[in-house]
């Protein structure tokens, strides 16, 4: 066994015990290969330690899953195919009977001939002269893995993974990012969520541009710019000093890459649409440059009026991200929940029932992690109760945050009603936690996925 032969084995094994004897023997003799195996194991172990730790957003995601499972029915199991219905009897013409009989006779003759060949005595063959015994076959050497073009799935019995629902649209994804911001006050986490938010808006702009849907593009590119300059750049600037340089470099690299990507895609579009998309590139580059230089980029133009529901959500998300203390975060989160309720109402009207439910999930997170948790923090850090009045005021506002949805349900047409109801049921657990009142719309109890082992 040579070092080169052992290399492939080392790269595919978890430990020396999983290696063939020949390779193990080589390892015992070769210090270089033993060191190589140790390096590989060291790398694997370091990679294992990179798994993300427990975070508030993780708990919120599990809670959302638990709530969703409570109200989502399973699909019907695959049932066996029904028995085939008997086919109607048809009359066979006389000539066909004759042809059939002829064919049957031919088959019988052929079968008889083959059977005769197979059972007839074998010819006598002279036995071969004794010769030198054949050398023993060499011990099978371990073969290094061969690279093949993938062809046949190894597990054909594994069914194709399901896609029961369509992917969420921009509004539902925006709601999710907003909920992440409300649930996690760390600037690093908020910057990540806002960057994802901006990336989703950018993807939507590109999708619409390629579809020739140009009219709404300026509002969306403006939204994108605000998310980057008022959101991402500010949160990077707020990051702890020891984390800031790495975070700034990483974020600036992402944005520069995104700018290049959009610029390349723009070149393939008609010039008038390309011009409408150009602000995406400019915003990415300006923000990246400011972050690299450690500056906050200049504020974009004023918000357009009247604001669309998505713009309202973005503005309110940015306010939550900027809020420093628990009481302000709780207060801004109630406003965010209210803005999201309006988005859910709009989606319901457009018969986007699933997305309305998704927004309802996000509302629940905002009310739970953004309002209830922050109010708890205020109460525990304020034992004298001097802020009791403010806490009650925020709780009262949280209680009213679902009013847009409740009002709409009362007067909704049959198309909008399912979405509104879904959003209300989905948001109910968070509403109950933020207000301390039992939910009018959903069920309580410990949901699956959050139980203790």
């Amino acid at each position, binding site marked *: 066994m040579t070092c080169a032969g052992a290399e492939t084995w080392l*790269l*595919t094994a978890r430990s020396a015990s999983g290696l063939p004897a020949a390779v193990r023997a080589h390892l015992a003799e070769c210090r270089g290969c033993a060191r190589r195996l140790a390096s590989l194991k060291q790398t694997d172990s370091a990679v294992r330690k990179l798994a*993300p730790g427990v975070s508030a957003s993780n708990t919120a*995601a599990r809670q959302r899953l638990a709530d969703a499972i409570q109200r989502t029915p399973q699909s019907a199991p695959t049932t066996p195919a029904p028995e085939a219905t008997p086919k109607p009897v048809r009359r066979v013409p006389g000539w066909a009977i004759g042809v059939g009989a002829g064919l049957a006779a031919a088959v019988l003759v052929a079968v008889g001939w083959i059977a005769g060949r197979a059972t007839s005595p074998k010819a006598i063959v002279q036995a071969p002269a004794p010769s030198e015994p054949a050398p023993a076959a060499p011990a099978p050497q371990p073969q290094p893995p061969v690279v093949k073009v993938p062809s046949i799935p190894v597990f054909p*019995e594994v069914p194709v*993974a399901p896609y029961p629902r369509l992917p969420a649209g921009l509004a539902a994804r925006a709601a999710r990012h907003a909920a992440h911001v409300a649930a996690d006050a760390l600037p690093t986490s908020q910057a*990540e969520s806002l960057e994802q938010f901006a990336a989703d808006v950018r993807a939507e702009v590109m999708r619409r541009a390629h579809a020739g849907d140009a009219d709404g593009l300026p509002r969306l590119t403006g939204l994108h710019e605000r998310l980057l300059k008022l959101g991402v750049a500010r949160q990077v600037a707020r990051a702890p000093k020891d984390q800031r340089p790495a975070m700034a470099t990483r974020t600036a690299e992402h944005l520069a890459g995104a700018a290049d990507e959009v610029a390349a895609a723009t070149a393939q579009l008609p010039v008038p649409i390309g011009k409408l998309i150009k602000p995406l590139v400019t915003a990415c580059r300006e923000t990246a440059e400011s972050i690299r230089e450690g500056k906050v980029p200049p504020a974009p133009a004023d918000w357009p009026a009247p604001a669309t529901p998505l713009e309202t959500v973005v503005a309110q998300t940015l306010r939550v991200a900027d809020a420093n203390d628990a009481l302000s975060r709780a207060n801004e989160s109630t406003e965010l929940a209210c803005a999201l309720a309006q988005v859910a109402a709009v989606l319901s009207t457009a018969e986007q029932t699933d997305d309305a439910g998704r927004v309802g999930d996000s509302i629940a997170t905002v009310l739970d992690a953004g309002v209830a948790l922050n109010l708890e923090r205020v109460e525990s850090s304020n034992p004298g109760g001097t802020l009791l009045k403010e806490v009650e005021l925020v709780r009262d506002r949280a209680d009213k945050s679902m009013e847009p949805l409740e009002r709409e349900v009362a007067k909704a047409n049959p198309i909008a009603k399912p979405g509104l109801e879904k959003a209300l049921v989905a948001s109910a657990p968070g509403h109950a936690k933020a207000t301390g009142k039992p939910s009018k719309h959903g069920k309580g109890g410990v949901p699956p996925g*959050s139980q203790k082992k």
Partner: protein
Amino acid sequence: VENDQERDWVRRASAGDRDAFAALVDRYWGPVRAWLAGLTGRVHLAEDLTQEAFLKAWVALPRLAAADTFRVWLFRIARNEYLAAARRLRPTGEVPDTPDSAPDPATVAIEREESAALRSAIGKLPDQYREAYLLWTHESLTYPEIAGILDVTEETARWRVCEARRRLTRILEKFLTP
């Protein structure tokens, strides 16, 4: 499926038992989230995708033919979620930062440099190598299982892990103790 209890959870969950499914969520949430975080480089996005994957698994579980294939099947759903998200967003290809739970000032500086290098190195791996390698390391899956999840042959799965490890050790040479 590692043991009879897990097989039992899968059967009961297939029949609509939410508590049994909750046990499966408890068992697999962490591994699926960690794998997706490694693929996306975004913890929040990974959590969203994990949530969606479990929800889809819950809906489709009655159609899963064999309880033994649950783990592979679940990771395939998670992979589909990842691919759909990757089509929507440009992947950053970086492994997310881990919050320091117990900072040790004496070693933090060195460890931070090493982890940054490691994250960057994993981020530089091609997607197909990264997904195979992270399944192999985080979940200790066998090559046939990895092949089942990635829908490739066992040899291809083996080759991808092999290549990922070769590249990582090359990039990280200076950090590895001789």
